[in-house]
């Protein structure tokens, strides 16, 4: 056995081990603490969990490729809100009045295009100005949110289209529409990152940008495409979610970036880039949703969820450091 095998295996499997621990803990604790008679590991409950993971999960897939690329996107929550407004508002525009239910694909397309363009704009700025992605998307987070508020002030934007609601609430092979979109997004981004040149370039650039440039990779357009992808996925997350709910508040999507980044980091993606994969991210998304649901199941309130998730994030970091330090010489300070 080569040195480091244990730590690698531990790290790649850690998120799934953690999920199993969560399941056991909440099942056992639920027997004593839960107010409901239903078991935590109820099949319907698990299916609901997958559906509820979708909004964060779909965005997290895009965040994985952006972070592997060595960048970060803090503006996804605001992009999410803008796409939701475009979706719901465009269905009431007079020019689409004659379309009947055909307005739905048009509205979806509009929202997705807007999300993609907002993401691409971030990417273009990062590429052309050389300003750090953290700063660019921090600014965009404020700017895009400003656009959201300018649209309708503090008022919610609402429009219910029952055909659309039926579609969003439909189930196919036992899985809800949102769950299918989450699985599809996971599969597509997995394919892109593991099987295509674009994906391999993402790892190369995140690992060592200088070397990637010297190897002839066009770093700028590459990063812009990844920002467009995360913009698209933020919009996709919004259209899937708001097709069902039909009403968006201007504050919706706030702090999504933090939840998404937490899921991605729990899933093993390095914040400095070059390492990570969407399967791990999927695990991170599920782990967080399990924690929220599980703590609710045993009667804890949202405050405990925040507390526990924050502490787990820090604990993962400490653990990761301990595992990585084995066999490495440390600079004595």
């Amino acid at each position: 056995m080569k040195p480091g095998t244990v730590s690698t295996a531990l790290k790649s499997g850690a998120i799934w081990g953690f999920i199993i621990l969560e399941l056991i803990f909440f099942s056992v604790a639920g027997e004593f603490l839960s107010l409901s008679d239903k078991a935590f590991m109820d099949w319907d409950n698990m299916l609901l969990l997958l559906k509820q993971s979708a909004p964060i999960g779909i965005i997290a897939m895009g965040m994985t490729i952006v972070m592997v690329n060595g960048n970060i996107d803090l503006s996804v929550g605001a992009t999410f809100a803008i796409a939701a407004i475009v979706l719901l508002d465009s269905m009431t525009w007079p020019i689409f009045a004659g379309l009947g239910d055909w307005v739905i694909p048009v509205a979806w397309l509009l929202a997705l295009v807007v999300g993609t363009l907002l993401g691409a704009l971030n990417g273009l700025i990062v590429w052309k100005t050389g300003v750090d992605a953290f700063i660019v998307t921090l600014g965009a987070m404020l700017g895009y949110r400003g656009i959201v508020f300018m649209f309708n002030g503090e008022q919610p934007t609402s429009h219910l289209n029952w055909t659309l609601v039926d579609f969003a609430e439909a189930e196919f092979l036992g899985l809800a529409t949102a769950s299918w979109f989450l699985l599809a997004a996971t599969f597509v981004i997995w394919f892109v990152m593991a099987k295509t040149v674009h994906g391999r370039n993402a790892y190369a650039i995140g690992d060592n940008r200088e070397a990637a440039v010297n190897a002839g990779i066009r770093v700028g357009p590459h990063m812009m495409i990844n920002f467009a992808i995360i913009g698209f996925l933020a919009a996709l997350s919004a259209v899937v979610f708001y097709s069902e709910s039909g009403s968006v508040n201007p504050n919706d999507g706030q702090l999504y970036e933090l939840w998404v980044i937490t899921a991605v980091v729990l899933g093993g993606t390095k914040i400095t880039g070059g390492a990570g994969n969407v399967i791990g991210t999927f695990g991170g998304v599920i782990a967080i949703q399990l924690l929220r649901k599980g703590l609710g199941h045993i009667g804890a309130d949202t405050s405990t969820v925040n507390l526990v998730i924050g502490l787990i994030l820090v604990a993962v970091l400490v653990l990761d450091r301990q595992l990585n330090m084995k066999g490495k010489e440390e600079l004595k300070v």
Partner: protein
Amino acid sequence: MADITRQQIGSLLAKQGILIAFVAFLIGFTIANPKFLTPDNVLSVIRSSAILGVMALGVTFVVISGNLDLSVGSMMSFSTIVVLDLHDKIGPALAIPAMFAMTLALGALIGFLVGYLKLNSLIVTLGMLSAIHGLTLTYSGGKNMDIADKEGTWFSVFGQGTALGLPIPILMFVAVAALLGLILSRTSFGRKVYAVGGNGTAATFSGIPRARTVFMCYLISATCVATAGLIQASRSLGSQNTVGQGLELEVLAAVILGGASLLGGSGTIFKTVIGVLILGFIQNGLLLIGLQFYVQFIVTWVIIILAVWLDIAAKRGKLMSPIA
């Protein structure tokens, strides 16, 4: 000749660009609305910027040392809630030091994790953002916190009082800025902060205690947060659990606007003060010329990116990035 002029303009922009932009803003808004530069308006802008400003002063230390602090917003909610709660339980004279001690303990925890364990500050403080928010909600039980006797307490002096004809929040902001400015520019600790942020490895080899310096920066940040929480609590004498939510990013925006590099090693207290004032005056100026409140977010977006872009463009001597 033309080249030299362009270089000179470039270096002038790089060094004083933010100050020039600030003055240009003031002139522009004053022309648009003469009320803008009246003493009353200026005082009210600085006063409402004071809470954000005090926090930004502490975060400046953290950023110069090469780290980030995303937890200041929820930490500020925490100290506000704690001091309001303890005010009625043990009286203001004891509540204030108790709140400072509790906030400093949180700062020490973050400082330990980032400084001594060398964990990534972005993720640690992201986790602490969530954890401290949970802690605050647990502490308050999710309820708003109010002081029972709002008229009869001297506690309101920090947020509402005046001295020497100036509001106390402004005086506190100025005092903290002066103190931290002296520490950063005139003491050996200040030089260590720059050294650690500029090149951590080199600093270590020069015998600078890197871990302890980073730890101290987070303690300073926590002290500033506690001060901001004190002003906030005293101003409103009641508070929601989410009073500081989202402030961490506005604070960071102010620090970056002031020209501190996220890579560490650069930035000054004076520039951060300018960054804070720019944010405050833009917000106020846009309202005075009749624009919606939300326009400031969009303007801030453009200004942050332009400020950082011009800064690095001047340093590399080219406007566009060399990325292929």
